[in-house]
């Protein structure tokens, strides 16, 4: 195991200086923390186009271990596409993705959760006709057995049940575990999505609008949960979020995406004061902030 990690780091070392040099020449890096070898999650010049449209434009992002990073930007800024490209759901047109110093750009989507990278979805993606428990249990099973396993002789209920119940408790999902996922309330479905992402035992967790459609009370609870995930489970969290109260209260740093490009990264106070951000995104909200 340590062998592969070493090799990967070496490969990274070979490639990284030239790439970083090119980036530095063409544009000032909006994310000063980019150092693919030390960051928990990093992207280097990540680009994704759909025909003529560039949805993600040379994004270089570096998220420190244990950081809680928010990504904000107007609708259509390319936030979800950035997540999809990082997760391998969409192959990038150009650029690299690094996880813990290791280049994972060529890895298949289903391999990434096993490398420590997990996500929750913006829309409630669930195994809808299955119980709440089974939704999480099957992910725990996958995390323990690997991406594929000929585990034919056991009863599935003997694999991962306790861990799944534990995770449902962690995210504060009170509905009975035997409830069908499709019958959960919207907020509980979002919590279930987070429990499933946690079931992959990730080191880096990408959350796509975890509070969307939630009541103010539920939003606060979710914000607390996210802080707890970072503080108590020690995960690195990258968060797409529209609720500025949540963003400003829990993020360590905020990255702003506009028309696919990263225009600024910094602590909340700095971002609030940034003129480019004000123009691109916050606009009329300046007074409010």
């Amino acid at each position, binding site marked *: 195991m340590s062998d592969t990690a070493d090799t990967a780091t070496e490969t990274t070392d070979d490639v990284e200086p030239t790439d970083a040099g090119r980036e530095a020449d063409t544009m000032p890096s909006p994310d000063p923390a980019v150092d693919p070898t030390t960051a928990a999650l990093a992207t280097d010049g990540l680009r994704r186009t759909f025909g003529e449209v560039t949805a993600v434009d040379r994004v270089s992002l570096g998220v420190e271990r244990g950081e809680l990073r928010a990504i904000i930007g107007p609708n259509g800024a390319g936030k979800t596409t950035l997540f999809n490209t990082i997760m391998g759901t969409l192959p990038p047109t150009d650029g690299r993705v690094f996880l813990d110093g290791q280049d994972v750009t060529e890895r298949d989507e*289903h391999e990434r959760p096993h490398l420590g990278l997990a996500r929750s979805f913006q829309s409630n993606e669930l195994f809808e006709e299955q119980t709440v428990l089974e939704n999480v249990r099957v992910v725990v099973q996958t995390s323990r057995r690997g991406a*594929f396993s000929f585990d034919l002789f056991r009863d599935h209920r003997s694999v991962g049940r306790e861990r799944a119940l534990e995770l449902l408790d962690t995210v504060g999902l009170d509905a009975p575990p035997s409830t069908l996922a499709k019958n959960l309330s919207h907020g509980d479905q979002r919590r279930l999505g987070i429990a499933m992402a946690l079931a992959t035992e990730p080191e880096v967790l990408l959350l796509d609008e975890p509070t969307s459609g939630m009541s103010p009370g539920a939003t606060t609870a979710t914000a607390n949960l996210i802080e707890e995930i970072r503080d108590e489970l020690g995960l690195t969290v990258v968060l797409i979020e529209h609720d500025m109260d949540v963003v400003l209260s829990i993020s360590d740093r905020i990255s702003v995406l506009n028309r696919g490009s990263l225009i600024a990264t910094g602590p909340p106070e700095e971002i609030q004061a940034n003129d480019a951000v004000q123009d691109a995104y916050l606009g009329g909200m300046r007074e409010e902030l």
Partner: protein
Amino acid sequence: MSGETATGGGSTETLDRARSLLGRYRVPVGLVLVVVLLRPVISNPLLLGYEAVAATILIWMVFVAAFNLLFGYAGLLSFGHAMFLGFGMYAAAIGVSGRAGAPQLPFPVAAAIGIAVAATVGYLLGRLTVEKGEIYFAFLTLAVAQAVEFTANRNPLNLTGGSNGVTQNVLPGFVESTRGQLVVVFGGLEVDWYWFVSAVFLVSMLALWQIVRSPFGRSLVAIRENGDLARAMGIDTTRYKVQAFTISAAFSALAGSVLMVDRYGASQETLSVITSGDTVLMAVLGGVRYFFGPIAGVFVWQFAEEFLNEFEVLHLGFTSVDLSGVLTHWQFFLGALFVVLVVVAPLEGIWGYLRDWVRDLYVRLKGVAE
């Protein structure tokens, strides 16, 4: 007093334990019930009045259950499953008969070859097709099955017998045919063909049940429910689908090899697209979301075929109606039932309705009792 309470508690406990055991093993118990009840039920004079089709029905149940592992559980609709049944049937027939210079083989060896061929074809075809999307998967399986039927029809090396199929010297050494009845002879022991088929049925169905309830099977269900999510959660959807296809093909061929003996040979009709289509219809009719769905579907389908074909005169006490002319078109009535089912609830099928109906009845009876 206290002694009485203790005894009372004990018996409740025993009852509870019995109930939980029954709950856990209700599928094996149900399968044994199918085997035990099928023959007496259909040979009842009010129903068919003869038992010859009972063994055939059991074999079809295995085949459609194998198909449904792929369709109902992994979510892949194969429109060419007849070819896998055919591989088992033809390999067994050719091997046992040793026709056209092929080496004469014991039945288990010939059947194993058929299963191996089916599994290999399933695996390779799976590698090519499972990620192509539903419609493409259905069409590609259909196309390959058509190619297989065409090849069998061309009678390569005189092995497959063309449109006549393989019907000469096809009975394995341990099976004897006396007065049209098949009898299995083990040493000095004679066993009804039905009980031999029952053994194959029980072993195959228990194996399929174990696959469905295993962690492997649950991964298939997750893939069926939401393939994108499954992949994002770290499930290698492609490999699971390919292996499900392989397993399904292997069990289909096993059913085919036994069907060969039951039908006294391999026939080209078995390979036709109609067989593949019937397979889909039987599974949907029974309910693809349930393990017992294919069992219910095959029973209703095969029974309806026999019963409605034989049915001639309806006696109503005061008068009799001759229905033979109408009921030979049994497929029309089954088709009508099918349309109703698909419109009302495509995934529930007969078994789903039966379950709901029994549950409602139970709840209502409980309400009355209280």
